């Protein structure tokens, strides 16, 4: 029973970090209506930026946020502006830009393989950081400290993003564009600039997720792939475009992964996750909290 509770707690902690990695994906989809297949690669880039920032300066991993957030925002902004915008313009009459989806896959391949070229295939981790391997005792249960930090960061980030979209002028402009891009353009909103900013925000959130991961996770060129697929599953579970849905979806996946091995071989939990994903797609494609008209 104790193990069960311990697994549940750790599943929730890891799950909210999964949710954080998927948050950027859901924001980009909500605004651009594009599934960003390069999302895992953006997380990978964020992890390398965070890794080098921490490894070179030797500061606490979370202090590297000061560097990672602006760098990743700029990276996402420019990526959207230079690579994705021209394709968007070419298919602007289509509500569901399919070509853009496949182009983001091209970005994924380029980023992953370039980082393989530059950084090599080896796994990197920050050995002497204050959070590494820390455990915190709750009665007889052991709770991972870096995951707890990650969970808190995920919740703060989600709340911050929610506030930004609801109550700031720019946030409202972004929401207006996501509801109806033509009407927003008529109201004087530059939709392509909004797309750039939304992509930048989504990428910056990947940077935050990267920070929460580096204290206990290895950095390597294909680290994004598993988070990529997991991210799609999470955002569809929670409802594409929903901020709270991403966190809840992440926690569901985290729970399956951490509690599941109590009942079956660990590798089967992956199949359960895919099965659940397909079930949600078929039964309720808008997910738990998604807008009905979005699918």
């Amino acid at each position: 029973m104790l193990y069960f509770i311990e697994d549940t707690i750790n599943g929730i902690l890891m799950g909210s970090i999964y949710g954080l990695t998927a948050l950027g994906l859901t924001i980009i989809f909500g605004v651009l209506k594009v599934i960003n297949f390069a999302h895992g690669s953006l997380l990978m880039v964020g992890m390398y930026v965070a890794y080098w920032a921490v490894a070179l300066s030797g500061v606490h991993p979370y202090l590297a946020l000061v560097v990672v957030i602006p760098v990743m925002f700029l990276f996402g902004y420019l990526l959207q502006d230079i690579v994705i915008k021209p394709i968007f313009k070419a298919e602007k009459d289509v509500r569901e830009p399919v070509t853009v989806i496949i182009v983001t896959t091209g970005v994924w391949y380029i980023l992953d393989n370039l980082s393989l070229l530059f950084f090599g295939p080896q796994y990197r981790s920050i050995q002497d950081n204050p959070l590494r391997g820390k455990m915190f005792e709750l009665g007889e249960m052991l709770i991972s400290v870096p995951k707890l930090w990650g969970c808190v960061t995920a919740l703060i980030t989600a709340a911050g993003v929610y506030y930004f979209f609801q109550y700031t002028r720019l946030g409202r402009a972004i929401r207006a564009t996501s509801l109806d891009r033509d009407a927003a353009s008529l109201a004087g909103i530059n939709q392509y600039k909004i797309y750039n900013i939304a992509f930048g925000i989504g990428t910056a959130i990947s940077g935050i997720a990267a920070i929460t991961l580096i204290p206990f996770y290895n950095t390597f060129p294909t680290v994004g792939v598993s988070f990529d697929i997991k991210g799609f599953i999470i955002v569809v579970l929670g409802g594409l475009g929903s901020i709270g849905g991403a966190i809840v979806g992440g926690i569901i996946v985290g729970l399956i992964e951490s509690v599941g091995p109590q009942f079956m071989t660990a590798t089967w939990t992956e199949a359960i996750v895919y099965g659940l994903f397909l079930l949600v797609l078929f039964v309720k494609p808008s997910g738990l909290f998604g807008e009905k008209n979005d699918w």
Partner: protein
Amino acid sequence: MTGNETLAPLDNSSGSNAGPLSVSGSKVTDQGVNPRKKFETISLAALLLIAFGLPLVMRSPTYLHIVILIYFYAYLTSSWNMVGGFAGVLPLGHSVFIGVGAYTSTILSLQYGISPWIGMLVGGVLSMGIGVLIGLPTFKMRGAYFALATIAFAEGMRVMVENLDFLGPFNLNGPRGLQIPPLNFGFLNFMFKGKEPYYYIILIMLIGVLVLTWIISRSKLGYYLNAGGEEPEAAMALGVNVARAKLIAMAMSSFLTALAGTFYAQFSLFIHPKSIISLDLSFEIAFIALIGGRGSIAGPLLGALLLRPVSDFSRIYFGDVFPGLHLVIFGVILILVMIYQPRGIQEPLTRAYNRFIDRLSKEEQAKEVS
């Protein structure tokens, strides 16, 4: 150049942009054969002659291997094209059909001694059933969801195969994959010592699928698919059963893709779940289709002709220094093509081809007049 001359080709190309295999456009002369038709017959015959004669000239097994893979990918992409191109959706899990084909024929031949040719058909039918099963609930979805659903299905199947040693009485051998011992050579066993027989088999398969695509593109089904892909609401309002057309396309596509799976299993004599039901393979097919030209007949062939050599040669020459180079090149080509030629490389080539034909027919006319 006079204004008249610049106008003429423009005028013609607008009437004949239906692809290099179409026989429309250029003025039909009353006397004698249409020069376009004549030229097309000759060049098609020449192409076939080159394709069938190639193994007689190309003795190196390495190069033959590369050409076989070009045909293999062109075949896969053409099969994919029936759904991904004509029906206007983006399936990203086609490797699951390759896997079904490969596993079915291999298990039947290893465990029951049934000829892979029969296994090929069984796998095709099985795969067709799975394709319809995936298509039924997913075709109602929008593009992004459809893409995600196909990915999830393929990945789920891969995880399952990797975790199962036995599926009922069938030995899947889990993550280790299946190996076909090279013992019984011969046509009935779909196993040959040299590469030439494989070459001819995949060539005939490719020609078959290209002809089938051509027939579909000019059939009612093709028009239904096209209409459903471009404007589903308008098509449905006109009484087109879009969902049914898409399902038929999916059934054909999954059947044909599974055949290629059997070919691959017999060609490499080894199937491994991680490489055969992989996301990378599904993506590569979609990449080739988009770069070549989605929804066109020649597109998949052109895409494979362009991309496969890039992939093979970069692996041969830069494999140890830069293992992922071909994927970077794929990505860069994909992005550039999508920005500058959203309809793929077949479009400028078709245009150039039409211009060439027009010039040819004009010369012919001039000759006749004189």
